[in-house]
């Protein structure tokens, strides 16, 4: 099948509901969403105003979902959405938006703009206007189980490595384990230390866990593409694996959109609630901390700061937890400006990081993070999303910083775990 304009418009129509209608009705064109947007703030180009990125969906809503708009269309006043429009908007919807949701937080009338971008991407991807890199990732994930292609051998190797390193056996495909652990392709490839860290932590806490060959990939490019069919296919693999192994829960790893995909979109994509729990790794670690099942020894010296992944904090509600944990293991934990719920995006989320065309924009957007990191002068930046981790490393280097270390929070906790406890 081929993508068509009509399929895209159709997908947009399917996305319009009462919240979207109330959002468009309420917009007063105050432009405050622009002030919240990292891409506008770092470029000052008005085309990056978040609400403007939604113009095509607004048109569909106005023309086809309001009585007045229908009347206008009948007399030829409603502006139609054309192939060219979609083409023109591709950059705005995919390159200059990470769906970080800062705009959603500042809109005075309460419009959830990030959610609408997610919806608008349904129309963009349906009509063949999604970035090629994301489409490629979706194809690889569908065909080989991971956006980076076939990762089974790598996964097995990393697990084996972790077993050797920690001396803790990790049983794959174990039925009846407490938790199913899933990982992002980035972690498997670049940050596998987290596997060993989890092994140690869960052993200490007395938690049984496993990894499934059928569904180990946490990422879901369907969410970034904005294609619910693809997203459903991908999330189903994980859900089915969990159901097959009869686990009590799935641990969502340090990956922003994966958390959204599995915990918040997943049930709606597959059309039913889960019988198991979905918990973010940091949420779980903080729970263990509170229960006294997480014991650490010693603290990292030097100034340490934290980068909040948008999808996990601002749009995921995990805010206090990483700070509780960091204070256990960091001697000198300092926050950057705007840290927490209103943290600025690393500029790589929402598929922007995979998008070659957006490289310049991403670089410019990161200027803000760079200034904020420089202001606190941290030696180490801790985060809880592998993609943020990757973007931070990449952009720090591009911005001439080869000194500052970036590390995942779970991995860091693993480092300071009190093995004797």
């Amino acid at each position, binding site marked *: 099948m081929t993508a068509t304009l009509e399929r895209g418009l159709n997908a947009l129509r399917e996305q*319009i*509901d*009462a*919240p979207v*209608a*109330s*959002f468009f*009705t*309420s*917009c*007063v*064109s*105050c*432009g*405050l969403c*622009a*002030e*919240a947007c990292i891409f*506008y*703030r770092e470029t*000052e180009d*008005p*085309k990056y*105003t978040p609400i*403007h990125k939604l113009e095509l969906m607004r048109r569909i809503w106005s023309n086809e*979902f*309001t*009585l*007045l708009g229908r009347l206008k269309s009948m007399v030829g006043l409603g502006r139609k959405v054309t192939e060219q429009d979609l083409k023109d908007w591709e950059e705005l919807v995919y390159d200059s938006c990470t769906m970080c949701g800062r705009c*959603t*937080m*500042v*809109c*005075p*009338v*309460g*419009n*959830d703009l990030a*959610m609408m971008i997610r919806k608008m991407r349904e129309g963009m991807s349906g009509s063949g206007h999604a970035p090629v890199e994301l489409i490629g990732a979706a194809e690889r994930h569908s065909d080989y189980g991971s956006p980076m292609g076939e990762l089974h051998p790598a996964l097995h190797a990393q697990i084996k490595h972790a077993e050797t390193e920690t001396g803790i056996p990790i049983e794959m495909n174990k039925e009846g384990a407490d938790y199913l652990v899933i990982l992002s392709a980035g972690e498997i490839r670049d940050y596998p230390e987290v596997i060993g860290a989890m092994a140690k932590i869960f052993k200490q806490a007395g938690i049984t866990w496993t990894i499934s060959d059928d569904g180990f990939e946490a990422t879901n490019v369907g969410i970034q593409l904005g294609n619910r069919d693809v997203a459903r296919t991908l999330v189903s693999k994980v859900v089915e694996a969990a159901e097959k192994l009869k686990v009590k829960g799935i641990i969502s790893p340090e990956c922003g959109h994966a958390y959204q995909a599995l*915990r*918040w*979109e*997943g*049930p*709606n994509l597959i*059309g*039913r*609630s*889960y019988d198991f*729990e979905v918990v973010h790794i940091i949420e779980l670690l903080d729970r263990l901390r509170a229960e006294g099942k997480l014991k650490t020894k010693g603290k990292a010296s030097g100034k340490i700061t934290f980068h909040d992944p948008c999808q996990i*904090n*601002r*749009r*995921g*509600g*995990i*805010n206090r937890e990483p700070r509780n944990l960091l204070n256990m293991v960091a001697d000198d934990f300092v926050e950057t400006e*705007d840290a927490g*719920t*209103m943290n600025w995006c690393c500029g790589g989320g929402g598929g922007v990081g995979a998008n070659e065309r957006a490289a310049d924009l991403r670089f410019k957007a990161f200027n803000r993070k760079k200034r904020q990191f420089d202001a606190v002068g941290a030696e180490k930046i801790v985060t809880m999303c592998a993609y943020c981790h990757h973007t931070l490393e990449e952009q720090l280097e591009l911005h001439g910083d080869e000194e500052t270390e970036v590390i995942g929070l779970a991995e860091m906790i693993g480092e300071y775990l009190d093995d004797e406890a």
Partner: protein
Amino acid sequence: MNNPYFDLLMWARGPGFDIALTIMVGGILLRVVEILVLGRKRDLATAKGSPVGQGVKTIFTRSFPRKGLVPFAPITYIGGYIFHIGFAIAFLFLGAHIALIDGLLGLSWPAANRAIVESATALAVIALFALLYTRITDPVRRALSTFGDYLVWLLSLLPLVLGYVAVNKLFGDPTLMMALHILSAEALMVAFPFTKLMHAVTFLMARYYNGSIQGRKGAES
């Protein structure tokens, strides 16, 4: 003999108001029901926070600016507050307006001193001009602005100015000015359901939805 101004005033108070009220009430109902009928799918994800509670809470909390943002859009924020509060005081605390609301809804409250009402009016007008200034000069706002934005600006300005002029007899025949004041308010009422003025009603829904979406995830809003 007829006083054309008085006739105009009586038309504005009579048929004019009836027409405007009918269009406004009917139009708002149309727009709101139209939105609600669209509905939204039940969210199947197990809630972490309280969607309803946070939805309701956000209706109120979103009235305050997010920390640190005011310096980046001072005119929009401060002008916006002054306009909204000024307009509300002028509309809700002038004795004549309270009498109108009392007659329509049977609700009444004490009126404010004229000095307060008129100061609020003047401030609201100044704020409107400041907001127009930023709408014209700021690239973001200029790019976003449509004919409707400028129309609504004018429609919001006229009742304030004409009301002030009529009450203080600044110029023109006071009866004519009062008639024009009422007619301008009626123009605002008629435009209400078909412009962004609807935000004065649907912000409740938008903020609720925003809060409930975030609240379900246990995230702030």
